[in-house]
C-alpha cells in the first residue's frame, strides 16, 4: 500500500541551461531543510536531484522533475524527452560517458551521474526509449533500513 502523499512539487528543467543547473536541487534541499529533515536525507536527495538535473541539462531539451514526500519515503521522478539511452546497463557503469569535450571542460560528463544516483537511492528505476525519452525514479527511505 502506498502511504498518503504529504507534499508534491513539480519542477521544469531546461536543456543546455548550465546557468540554472543546480537550482532544482537547491530548491528541493531548501524545502527539506524547512521541514527539518535529517541532514543525511537532505544530502542524498540533493545528490540525486543534482545529478539527474545535470543529465537533463546535458542531453535533453526539457524535463519534469516530480518530488514526492510521504511518511515513509521521498521520491524523485525525472521524465525527459531527450534522445533516450540505447544501453542502460552500459550507462550505469561508472566512468561510461557520452559527454562532449566541451561538457567535460565544464567539469561534467565523467560518467558518474547515473551510477551515483543508483548508489544514493534505496530504490532505483531507469527506463528509456531511444528517440522518445527517459524516465528515472529514485526513492529514498526516510527511516534507515
Amino acid at each position, binding site marked *: 500500500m502506498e502511504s498518503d502523499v*504529504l*507534499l508534491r512539487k513539480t519542477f521544469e528543467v531546461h536543456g543546455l541551461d548550465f546557468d540554472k*543547473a*543546480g*537550482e532544482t*536541487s*537547491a530548491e528541493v*534541499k531548501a*524545502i527539506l*531543510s*524547512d*521541514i*527539518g529533515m535529517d*541532514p543525511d536525507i*537532505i*544530502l542524498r536527495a*540533493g*545528490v540525486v536531484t*543534482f545529478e539527474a538535473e*545535470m543529465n537533463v541539462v546535458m542531453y535533453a531539451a526539457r524535463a519534469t522533475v516530480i518530488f514526492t*514526500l510521504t*511518511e515513509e519515503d521521498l521520491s524523485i521522478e525525472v521524465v525527459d524527452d531527450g534522445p533516450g539511452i540505447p544501453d542502460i546497463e552500459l550507462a550505469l557503469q561508472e566512468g561510461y560517458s557520452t559527454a562532449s569535450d566541451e561538457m567535460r571542460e565544464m*567539469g561534467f560528463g565523467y560518467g558518474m551521474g547515473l551510477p551515483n544516483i543508483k548508489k544514493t537511492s534505496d530504490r532505483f528505476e531507469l527506463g528509456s526509449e531511444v528517440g522518445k525519452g527517459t524516465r528515472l525514479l529514485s526513492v529514498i527511505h*526516510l527511516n534507515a533500513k
Partner: protein
Amino acid sequence: MSALAHGFRIDEEKCQGCLACMRVCPTHAIRVRQGRARYTPERCIDCGVCLSSCQWGAIAPTTSSVKDLCGFKFRVAIPSPVLFGQFPAGISPAHISQGLLMLGFDAVWDFAVEISLVDRAIKEYLENWKGPLPLISVACPVVVRLVQVAYPRMVDQLICIQPPREIAGREAKRRYSGELGIPRDQIAAIHITPCQAKTISILEPAERVESNLDGTLGISEVYNAIVASANTMKAEPEKPPKAVPIRSAALLRSCLGDGLSQVLAHHRYLHVTGISNITQVFDDIEKGRLRNVEFVEAHSCWSGCAGGNLTVANVYVTLSKMQSLLDRLPDMDRETLAEVERRYSTEDFGLGRPILPRPARGHSGNLSERVRAVREAEALLTKLPGLDCGLCGAPTCKEMAKDVSIGDALLSECIYHSNDLQRSRESKRIPKEK
C-alpha cells in the same frame, strides 16, 4: 539544555526597535516584537553585523575585561596579527608588545610557529581526505557557525584541524608551566581579538571541547592603553621597550591571505571574505558547482580579520601597514623554522570532536505536522505583500509567513492585514484587492 552563549547581548532599555539589526542579520535570527529586538540563539552565528548596525549602542560585545585576569598567576597575551597594523606610524611592534605588558600581561606570544604548524597540518589533512570537497577552514568562528546553522549538510567539510590561536594557547601554557613551575590552570592565555566571534569560540566551542584559551580582550579595549604606554616610552628614549617584538613575517602573512595559499600552491584553493560572498560560494558548493575546488578559506569580515568589529583603524590602512611591516621582517627566521620541524611530528592538531549541525527552531512535531506548517507558510506567503518592508518585525515576508505558521506571530501584525488599515480602507471606500 542551557541557552547557547553568544558574543553579544541586546540591552532592552537602549533598544529603540528601529529594525536596523533585523534587516542586516544574515541568518534572519532577529525579530523586533513590542518595539524591542530579540534574537533566536540557535540561529545566531555571532557575525557581529548587528553590533555595527546599531546606532543606539544597544548591542554590546561580550569579551573579558582586564579585571578577569587577576585570578591567574601568569598571564600570556596572544595577539591577533591584526593588532600590529592598528597603530599610527612610530608605534612599533615592540611598543605594542610592551604596552600589553604594561596592561598586566606577563608575556606576549608570537604565534607564527603555530600558524606554520596548522598550515602544514591542513595540507596533510587535505592530501589524505577521501570525503566530499571542498574542505572548509575553521579559523573564522562565524563561518563554522554559518555552516552549522545554514549549511548543515556541509558540516563534514569543516576541516578537523584546530585554529592556530588554540594551538598557541596550549603551547603557551605548557611552556610557561614547565619553565616557571606554575600549574597550567593558573596560567591565563588571552587572545587579543579583532572580533567578538573569537570570544564565543572560546566560551562555547563548536566542537564541544574545552578551549585552550581563557578569554579575549578586544583590540578596541587595549588600544588606548597601548597608545598611552607607547607615548610614555617615546618620551624616555633612554629606556627602550624590553618586550620581544614579532620575529618573522609569517605571523602577519596569515592575515593578508597569502600564508596558506603558499602552502597550498598545488591545490585548488579559494580565499573568500565577506559573509554575502561566502553565502554565494557555499550556495554553489551545495548546488554541486564547485566540485573541483579542494579548500576554502573563508572569513566573515570583508578583507578578513583586519575588518573585525573590535578593531580601531580603517581596514585598508591596517592592511597596508601590515604589508609594510611584513616587508621589513625576515620571511621566516631559523629559530621559528626549527621549532616548526621539532613540533610538527609530535603534536596533535585535531579538533577533538567533530562539529555537528545546529538544530533550527520550529521543527517540533512529527513529519506530517512539520510538512503542514511548511505548506501553511507557503499559503500565507501568497497573502503577504512581498515587499520585505520589515514593519511586522520579521526581516522578510517569507520569514513572517514561517513565524505565523509556527504560531510565533499573527498575520494581523503585517501592515497589509492590520485591523487599523482595514478600517481606514473601508472608511475611504478603497476596494480591497483579492
